């Protein structure tokens, strides 16, 4: 800490100097307008892949929100024989229990994406908060949190998830009449905690660079509390990298949960879910029928779309030009 930052007269106090404040108040409006123009120009100049990604994501959101209106049949309704071929009534055929494939696919948009999104949000709240806390407090809090994260990350996520799910599912299986939602809740919490380690690492690294800035020091000297510094000084300056990271983490969590469901250990039946639908209909592939590819393709398409958008955002924020 240098002498000048210690000297209170060099800190501009907006209350003592109203002209500084009005200049501050006027500045954001101009900045906002130009930001709006900048954003619209960025959209116009976005590469085709980014457009493809944004349109695809919009379609998925639409399908997930209006699933009951769009689906011709119910999510768990058995409507025909097993493995019926596509026809006018069942546009994509029926599955291994005789449920309409198209309706299941549509409802699964809600379930699978919803679960992955919820997991990512929890993971971000947890990892982001702890990461900023570690960077702001430093010292032993940082040491303890970082070492815990190191250990958790030294076991591959899928393997750790399998171990944790065995324990959790045994507990739930012991209960009298357990609700199927308990399995999903356990899945969400386990995945969120495991994934928050990655968020923690990134947030801590980003926040470390912000904590050393003069304005954070000024806030500390003003006597602001820890929560204020995290919320008002660090968070606004860390959002840009965190948003791109959110997209990447979502893809990762989404693929991992789908893999677990495919292995029969994620989302439990009869909930419609893309990963378990692949598993249920997998036998058809050896007859040269592509049915297991629909849910798998639905997973792949959404992940590709999110990745394309994130790629474009990262490319822009890193200042690279074609």
């Amino acid at each position, binding site marked *: 800490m240098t002498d000048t930052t210690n000297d209170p007269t060099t800190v501009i106090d907006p209350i003592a100097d109203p002209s500084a404040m009005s200049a501050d108040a006027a500045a954001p409006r101009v900045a906002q307008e130009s930001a709006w123009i900048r954003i619209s120009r960025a959209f116009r100049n976005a590469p085709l892949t980014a457009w493809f990604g944004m349109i695809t994501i919009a379609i998925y959101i639409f399908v997930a929100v209006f699933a009951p209106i769009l689906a011709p049949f119910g999510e768990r309704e058995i409507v025909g024989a097993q493995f019926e071929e596509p026809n006018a009534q069942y546009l994509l055929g029926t599955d291994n229990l005789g449920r309409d494939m198209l309706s299941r696919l549509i409802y699964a948009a809600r379930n699978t994406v919803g679960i992955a999104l919820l997991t990512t949000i929890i993971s971000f709240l947890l990892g982001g908060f702890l990461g900023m806390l570690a960077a702001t407090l430093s010292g032993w809090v940082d040491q303890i949190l970082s070492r815990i994260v190191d250990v958790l990350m030294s076991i591959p996520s899928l393997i750790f998830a399998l*171990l944790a799910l065995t324990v959790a599912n045994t507990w739930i299986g012991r209960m009298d009449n357990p609700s199927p939602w308990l399995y999903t809740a356990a899945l969400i919490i386990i995945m969120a905690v495991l994934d928050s380690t990655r968020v923690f690492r990134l947030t801590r690294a980003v926040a470390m660079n912000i904590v050393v800035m003069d304005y954070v020091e000024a806030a500390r000297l003003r006597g602001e509390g820890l929560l204020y510094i995290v919320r008002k000084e660090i968070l606004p300056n860390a959002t840009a990298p965190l948003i791109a990271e959110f997209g990447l983490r979502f893809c990762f969590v989404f693929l991992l949960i789908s893999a677990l469901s495919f292995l029969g250990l994620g989302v439990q039946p009869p909930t419609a879910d893309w990963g378990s639908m692949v598993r249920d209909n997998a036998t058809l*592939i050896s007859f040269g029928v592509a049915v297991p590819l629909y849910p*798998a393709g639905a997973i792949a398409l959404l992940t590709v779309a999110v990745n394309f958008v994130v790629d474009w955002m990262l490319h822009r924020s890193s200042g690279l030009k074609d």
Partner: protein
Amino acid sequence: MHPIASMALKRLGLGLLTLLVVSVIIFSAVEMLPGDLAQEILGQAATPETVAAFRKELGLDKPPVERYFEWLGGAVQGDFGKSLASKREIADLMSSRLGNTLFLASFAAVLAVPISIVLGLLAALYRNTWFDRMINVLTLSSISFPEFFVAYILILMLAVGYPFGLLWVLGLIGLWFLMEGIGSFRAGQKIGKILPLLPALFAVIGAALVVNLIFGWWKPQMGGVTAFPSISNIAPGTPFWERVERSFLPALTLTLVVTAHMMRMTRAAIINLLASPYIEMARLKGMNPWRVIVTHALPNALAPIINVVAINLAYLITGVVVVEVVFVYPGLGQLMVDSVTKRDITVVQACCLVFAATYILLNLIADILAISTNPRLLHPK
């Protein structure tokens, strides 16, 4: 002592410490299970005396700390105890499967490492050309695909004889050129120059094939490739080349998934390197571009490339679980998933420990190799 040797020893100690902590976590998973393990195995009908005797046999009457050290001591010597579900020795269950999994992972690595390093290097050298853009889109898509999606596409195309393999590829290439064409049209070029008819035709064929695959309106006669088995039947006595043939599809799946990651990371590492001042200096003094790459860039790129390879080999460990289940490959991943389904916690524990140890070991090797190729890393700031 040589500084690299002392560094390697330090890292080794740190790795062992991590492994120890991980083993405590894995062991405590059993402690966290509800109820009594002995009761669980014998069932509700067992008399209290039998349960007590069985507890003694399993060593459950001892305090957890003592049991942990017994378990760890056994595990170090390859004795993981007995399976709860089948009552067999876990070491017997695992021995041949571990070999199979290592075979599959090394098969995939042998294919993936050279391909991805060469392609990554080319993409970095010819960056921002159409080649680089195509690699970018292809790898980004392949990263986004779940392993089972890639696996089932490969089964459909190479194992069960879904026809039109070549047309699919042409359709994809056509779609790609169409997108390139639209891109340059948006950049202000005349449409007549850039939108050739042939790619557009291929793109239409490709789209029609996708739609037909989904709805199955028109049933093509089977007659495509059926060269590879969709189920990897591997027994301990299978000869080497047969083993290679039977595990080709799982290895190819893993290769496709891992190559994309590895290629992107290699490209980023090389581009990062090419931006450094000494490369610019070498160029400015008029050195031959290939000489710049081989004598200046490559020695310094080794550390990041080794890192990339190790990270992705560690990634293979998780990818292997899903792929083994798809192809019914008799490996460790399959065993672990089966045991989780049966809630056979002792086997899950053993598999988890082996996977974690391999993962830690690979990261350790990467660290040591990276530092020994780049002495600057010996002295962190």
